[in-house]
């Protein structure tokens, strides 16, 4: 329906935001709010019925997002949103389930649910706001924090390797995987749309600036500089791969500093609940045959 023009923010606010919950609790310059904006626009373009979408989340700044949406919201326990979402979907596969989660929520404490949902190809859309840090609790090191990160719990510099979440999801065969910085509006909107439309497990990893708990401590400058950081430190997957394959040594070395972005995976797979419904249908038909109809 992209022919229809996108309504303006006044209209979107009225339609999608939960009255009485705004403004958000997010800090000045936090990127999390933008991801919600993009989600509204994706939903608007898809003309989905907001009565039939459930927004689930765990705990974290990012996980506060469903609180702002005028729709069914399930703000669960830290790290478990995907497991809750699996249940929501299992009990009523007709509902669309969109999970908002953080890097810590989804891959720190919640890593297991994340990988199992991807493996099972559970038909949900996960919008993961990666700010490389535990924002809500004040800036502890996250499994996504780059080596050397200064955080309240890595005051001498982080020594751990970081998860590349999209890469992990890809390795697990997720049906849809994309990564973008929130500072790019159009690509996230498109990816969220595609993610929702994809059968099976979709991950949209949005890199979201956290000036308070990450930027400040890691000398990434003020809000503006932090938002700009992504311009210099990201590269489209195609280009990245090309350099990686055919680039000069110097070009390759420069990749060290770059995060790959783009749509990494988009495959047609039977969603778990599709397969399940099929199995149920067959079992019932079998029984009916055996019993001569119920």
């Amino acid at each position, binding site marked *: 329906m992209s022919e229809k023009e996108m309504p*303006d923010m*006044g209209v979107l606010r009225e339609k999608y935001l939960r009255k009485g919950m705004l*403004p958000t609790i997010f800090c000045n310059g936090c990127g999390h*709010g933008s991801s919600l904006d993009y989600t509204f626009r994706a939903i608007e373009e898809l003309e989905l019925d907001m009565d039939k979408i459930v927004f689930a989340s765990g705990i974290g700044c990012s996980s506060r997002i469903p609180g702002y949406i005028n729709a069914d919201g399930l703000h669960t326990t830290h790290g478990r949103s995907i497991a809750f979402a699996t249940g929501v979907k299992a009990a009523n596969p007709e509902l669309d389930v969109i999970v908002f989660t953080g890097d810590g929520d989804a891959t720190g404490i919640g890593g297991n649910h994340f990988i199992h949902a991807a493996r099972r190809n559970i038909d949900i859309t996960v919008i993961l706001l990666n700010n490389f840090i535990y924002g809500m609790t004040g800036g502890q090191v996250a499994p996504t924090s780059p080596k050397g990160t200064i955080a309240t719990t890595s005051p001498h510099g982080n020594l751990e390797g970081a998860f590349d979440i999209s890469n992990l999801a890809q390795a697990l065969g997720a049906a849809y995987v994309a990564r973008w910085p929130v500072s790019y509006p159009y690509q996230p909107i498109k990816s969220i749309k595609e993610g929702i439309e994809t059968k099976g497990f979709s991950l949209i990893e949005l890199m979201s600036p956290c000036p308070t708990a990450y930027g400040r401590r890691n000398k990434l400058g003020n809000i503006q500089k932090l938002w700009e950081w992504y311009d210099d430190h990201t590269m489209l997957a195609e280009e990245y791969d090309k350099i990686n394959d055919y680039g000069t040594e110097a070009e390759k070395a420069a990749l060290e500093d770059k995060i790959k972005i783009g749509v990494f995976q988009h495959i047609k797979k039977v969603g778990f609940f599709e397969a399940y419904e099929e199995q149920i249908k067959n079992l019932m038909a079998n029984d009916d045959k055996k019993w001569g109809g119920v």
Partner: protein
Amino acid sequence: MIEILDDWCKGCEICVKRCPVEALEISEIMNKKGVRVPRLKEDNKCHQCRLCELLCPDFAITVTKEEKEEEKECKLIIGGVCAD
């Protein structure tokens, strides 16, 4: 026309810095939280590309496509448009 929901604006200046034609500026107007909110410059080349609306992390900007001539007037609409 650019409407700013002043009380939702946190003052990040993303809109100001990312407007492709530098049409916005931080104004003298302070909201409830003591934040100086952005406005279209007196003299601006805003072509309603909506980038500011899209990028504002706080749902504070509305770009309504109206005729150029109405724009001046619209700048005056401030605060509280949608909050309840």
